[in-house]
């Protein structure tokens, strides 16, 4: 009964949302595989997170605790994780596709000589046949490749555990159940001089200025917006309807808006209730970051723009005319 194990990341006294998303998905995987869901937490004050990990479906929490584990450093966390893997005995290990997950997971894959698939956008369980051999209940690791032009399904039939990093925002959160209980397994490791080969001298954290993930409404602009000044109109509209402002990479690269606002394959993945797309062509790398939005409202001068293939509301027109009209109408109707 090999487990499903999730590596938990914490940030500012909170469990990172990607870790909770992975636990949520882990519930589904464990049911299909008829096994247990385990959480691995390596850090300083782990205990205060246990309740929430159980609430999100962990049956067991493996905890490695000590000052040296926070903030994250590669080697101490690799050693901690390897110890947890020994005890948890997983068939699947999931990590967030964050700077931390993408630093840690390959180091572990190399040590264990197992497969690892980066930046998955979906995970499923299924069978696999290859050279007359058949495997059942493998993890399908689904990810965009070739700059987003194709979607590949990767499997890891033999050299287990099966490991994947998963993009933040693509898995749905389950409703936590705070009455759930589970078992905590505390592990301690021997000291190793290896742990101190890299030391953190300083950290400068910047405040997040946008919260695309938490937004119900996103007003996004692309290259068609045309200038930084014009983007200000998007901000005005967003403020009016209580939305956050998003952008395409083309708009970010043109310097109209900061990178924090980028949505898509190399930006944030979002699924707000309403997504306004102004002057966005709808390139696949942008679509993968927003096509799960509830209602997509696209404004584009080009009736053939691919964004209209996924839009629920189609307005063929110039955003320079449509946007001011929207602001005006909203003010009139909102009264």
């Amino acid at each position, binding site marked *: 009964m090999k487990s499903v194990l999730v590596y938990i990341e914490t*940030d500012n006294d909170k469990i990172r949302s990607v870790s909770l998303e992975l636990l949520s998905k882990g519930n589904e995987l464990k049911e299909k595989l008829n096994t247990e869901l385990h959480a691995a937490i390596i850090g300083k004050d782990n205990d205060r997170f246990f309740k929430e990990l159980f609430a999100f479906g962990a049956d067991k929490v493996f905890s490695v605790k000590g000052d040296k584990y926070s903030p994250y450093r*590669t*080697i101490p966390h690799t050693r901690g994780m390897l110890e947890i893997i020994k005890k948890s005995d997983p068939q699947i290990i999931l990590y967030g596709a*964050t*700077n*931390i997950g*993408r*630093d840690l*997971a*390959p*180091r572990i*894959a*190399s*040590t264990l000589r197992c*497969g*690892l*698939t*980066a*930046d998955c956008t979906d995970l499923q369980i299924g069978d*696999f046949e290859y050279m007359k051999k058949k495997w059942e209940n493998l993890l399908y690791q689904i990810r*965009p490749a*070739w*700059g*987003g*032009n*194709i*979607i*590949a*399904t*990767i499997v*890891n*039939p033999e050299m287990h555990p099966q490991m994947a990093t998963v993009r933040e925002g693509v898995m749905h959160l389950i409703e936590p159940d705070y009455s759930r209980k589970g078992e905590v397994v505390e592990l301690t490791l021997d000291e190793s001089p*290896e742990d101190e*080969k*890299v*030391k953190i*001298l*300083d*950290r*400068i*954290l910047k405040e997040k200025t946008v919260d695309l993930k938490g937004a119900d*409404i996103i007003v996004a602009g692309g290259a068609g917006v045309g200038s930084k000044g014009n983007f200000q109109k998007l901000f005005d509209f967003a403020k009016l309807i209580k939305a956050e402002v998003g952008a395409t990479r083309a708009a970010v690269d043109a310097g109209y808006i900061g990178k924090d606002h980028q949505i898509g394959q190399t930006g944030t993945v979002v699924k707000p209730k*309403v997504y306004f797309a102004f002057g966005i062509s709808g390139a*696949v790398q942008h679509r993968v970051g927003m096509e799960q939005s509830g209602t*997509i409202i696209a404004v584009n001068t080009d009736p053939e723009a*691919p964004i*209209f*293939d996924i839009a*629920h*509301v*189609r*307005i*063929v027109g*110039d955003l320079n005319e*449509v946007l001011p*009209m929207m602001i*005006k*109408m*909203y003010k009139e*109707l909102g009264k």
Partner: protein
Amino acid sequence: MRIVVLAKQVPDTKNVPENAMKEDGTLNRQALPAIFNPEDLNALEMALELKDRYGAYITVISMGPPNAKEVLKDSLYRGADKTVLISDRKLAGSDTLATSVALAGAIKHVEPNFDLIICGRQAIDGDTAQVGPQVAEKLNVPQITYTLSIEEVDSKEVICDREIENGVEKVKATLPVLLTVTKEANIPRPENVKMMMKYKKADIAPESKIKIDMLSLDDIGVDAKYVGLNGSPTKVKNIESVVIAKKETKDYSPDENGIKELFNDLMENHLVG
């Protein structure tokens, strides 16, 4: 200072021409121009800056088909001292783990006394960012991923800034160490005209007077069972082109009536308001 740079030749996935998509939705690799992986140019630039500052001997290693020598030639034009191509049919089908076995083996063979290994953060064909950390693990050295800049290096340690999820972290690592470099780190210098003259004829030995060494698995002492398809834990089950499900679309006219109707509909459904 002895520096190894790992550089890969990749298909230019940023500019996919129409004819590159095959009927079955897969990509025809041959139809894409082959380029120097962009972040590997940042890695090379970081090595060259260290060479300018402290003096260094730079070895660039690439694994790939004989054609990948172009990347190595380009490295010589920019100021690398030595280039090595690891090429062997048995490497075909290698995933990131198998690739790291071959590259770590090559480093042990070619430049065992390295102080720094510098890689790109990720290659644009796979976007995995895995090979760097896996090579570091195989050589049992620490890694600094997402490196933005090097503050200083002495004979024992390096101090770098690296990107973290919500900011920047300054770290100090003992040498030898492996770094992966992001595109924010620097602007790669262009080819140097003098070097271009000097290395114009550089080719795979023995066709030319050395400069690009081509080594096989036997040459670097790597067992074929750890590379290629057999040494790769991951298998591609299938690939699909990206198809979009056509959604119900409603048209609204781009005038006051249309916009009014839209907002009425949105407010009625409590989507805005």
